[in-house]
């Protein structure tokens, strides 16, 4: 376990240093997110009354689409110089590669949320500065990264990875999407008469189950 945690830490350090120097993932994610927020702003022309209804949907959709760009690139760096094979030869347990990638992708999503929330608040003149709202986005990002990292590790080995990733991933994200949007809706007061606990439980169970399943199957995914 100690060796496993050590590998995870070393792999995350490497991913973060690489990203800090190349800024490949964050630049593409942020550019896409900001542009999408602008487009939604002009396309929907929301009145102050229905802004709260639609805010959770817009924020989460922007994060999911922008995150897909990041997921695609997170494994491309390993694939380019054959580094994936170098990692397979070096780590004591292959699941460490998955878990490190999951945490790196989660960090990217959380960072994205930190930037998207103020930009949305300014553009739409609606404050989303709410710790609970941010917490739900973080929980959703965990489930998204858990499923996305596994699917990205499969699709990166194919020629049509840019297309395959969303096609395979988005259906799997249905429970996360519903739970995040509904929970945030309850928090912003746009969804009346619903209990947030049910949605949060769904989100937590999804996160834990997908993470555990992915750790179990990752070795087979890589080797096959």
């Amino acid at each position, binding site marked *: 376990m100690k060796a496993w945690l050590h590998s995870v830490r070393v792999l995350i*350090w*490497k991913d973060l240093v690489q990203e800090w120097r190349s800024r490949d993932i964050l630049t593409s994610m942020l550019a896409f997110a900001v542009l999408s927020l602008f487009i939604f702003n002009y396309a929907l022309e929301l009145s102050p009354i229905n802004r709260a209804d639609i805010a959770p949907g817009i924020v989460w959709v922007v994060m999911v689409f922008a995150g897909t760009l990041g997921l695609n690139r997170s494994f491309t760096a390993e694939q380019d110089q*054959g*580094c994936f094979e170098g990692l397979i030869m*070096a780590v*004591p347990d292959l699941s460490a590669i998955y878990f490190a990638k999951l945490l790196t992708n989660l960090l990217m999503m959380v960072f994205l949320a930190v930037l998207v929330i103020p930009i949305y608040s300014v553009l739409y003149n609606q404050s989303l500065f709410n710790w609970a709202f941010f917490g739900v986005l973080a929980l959703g990002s965990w489930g998204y990264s858990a499923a996305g990292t596994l699917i990205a590790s499969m699709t990166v080995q194919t020629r049509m990875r840019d297309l395959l990733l969303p096609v395979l991933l988005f259906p799997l994200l249905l429970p996360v999407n519903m739970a995040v949007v509904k929970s945030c809706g309850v928090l912003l007061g746009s969804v009346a008469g619903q209990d947030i606990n049910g949605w949060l439980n769904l989100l937590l169970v999804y996160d834990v189950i997908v993470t555990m399943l992915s750790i179990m199957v990752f070795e087979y995914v890589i080797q096959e």
Partner: protein
Amino acid sequence: MTLQARQISKAYGAQRVLDKLSLSVDAGELVCLLGANGAGKTTLIRTLSGLQKPDSGEVLWGSKSEGIGALKLRRSIGLILHQPFLYEHLTGFENLRFYSRLYETGLGDADLRKMLGRVGLGSARPISVRGYSRGMKQRLTIARALLCDPHILLFDEPYTGLDQQGCGMLNQLVLEESARNKLVLLTTHELSYIRQVATRFDVLHRGKIAASIPNAGISLDALQEQYSAVVSAGKTTRKEQA
């Protein structure tokens, strides 16, 4: 300790690359695998490293009858393939430190610098690998492969991109490792260099080891002649069969 391939076969679609191939390399041996382009040398190296499973047959290491695919054994292999396994945005030193930490070698910064010096990169500027030449990347790849003090060295075309001095350095390194009872199997077309250090030449042809030529002071001409004879004999047989 012995690395053994027993009756391994591997096909890509309809094309059979390895055909019930058997091979045995003992510790301390330095075996060169020869073969034409597309003969299956890289496939064999990948299969022996455990990165790729054979369709049939097995690869064994030592007397434990343990599959080479086992993760612990894989970590005792120094592997060089066509791609360098290096991160372009890290410096050469950072790449070594990263792999050293993954392998848990316990090497300090001074040891890693010594390692860089061993492959002739001791005085290289601390720039990211993106700015390295092909030869510098290959030198760093060699250092990366030796980092974990491997029992088995599997090098696919290790002379690629190296200058004359680099080829001499590589010969010196593999000789040193072989003298430490390490098992070395490498593929190359650079017969003039490998002839100076190899203990044996195995010729891979039509998916099998078609000949094994011991290096008892063999001359370059004699080696080339014997290699050509094996390959052309295989072609003749194929024509006769057709």
